[in-house]
């Protein structure tokens, strides 16, 4: 992934509607109309979100001019989640210990 591509991926993921679109596409490819259905949004608004996702490499679109079904592309998500899991690998065990420490303080005499 290029230097700033991951930033583009995180930017694309920052929006709840786009995350919902990705969740929908995780079930299988869909047309713009199918994607738009659960949202109270115009087709152009949905298309705009799809363009952001496509630019981030998170989805690809079919070549058939009329339908152009959208498909989830897993690789950028994999790289993004890899980085996040690395960050969480530091913090999760630390914060588990902090949690246990706080619990023992709450139970025992005042520190």
């Amino acid at each position, binding site marked *: 992934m290029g230097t700033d591509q*991951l930033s583009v991926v995180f930017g694309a993921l920052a929006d709840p509607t786009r*995350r919902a679109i990705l969740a929908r596409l995780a079930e299988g490819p869909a047309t713009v109309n199918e994607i738009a259905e659960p949202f109270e949004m115009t087709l152009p608004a949905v298309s705009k979100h799809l363009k952001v996702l496509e630019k981030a490499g998170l989805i690809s679109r079919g070549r058939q001019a009329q339908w152009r079904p959208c498909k989830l592309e897993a690789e950028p998500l994999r790289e993004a989640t890899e980085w996040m899991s690395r960050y969480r*690998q530091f913090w999760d065990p630390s914060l588990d210990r*902090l*949690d246990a420490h706080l*619990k023992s303080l709450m139970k025992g005499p005042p*520190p």
Partner: protein
Amino acid sequence: MTFREIEFVRIFDAPRELVWRAWTDPGQVAVWWGPAGMHTPRETVDLDVRPGGVFQVTMVSDENGAAFPSDMRYTKVDEPSVLEFEWDADRGLGAGRVTITLRDLGDGRTEMTNHYAGWTTDAIEPFMRQGTDQQYDKLAAMLA
């Protein structure tokens, strides 16, 4: 160099003052700081909790005793709600800033938000490729 940003939230079953002290008292930081397989000896913890003050800890591998010193600086100290610290790019890890925000939930619990923003260098990339087994759990959590 790549810009990265991440935020996550954790709730502790303890009042905010207690969580704040756990973050700012050296003896308490030594108890909990560090990833799995590492511990942080009390004598390596040096905290000068004020803007510009040092935030130094040395993590030691449980397995082979290898030491990993961290040299950070506080950039914002707003007791008992905001603690911000950053480190520079000298050690090949890239520069970064962590903002810890503590919110009193009013029922004896405290919500902690951990926000990271920074630049990573290519040197850290191999480390980032470790532990990819968790990634799909994280993906699921992210999409939830």
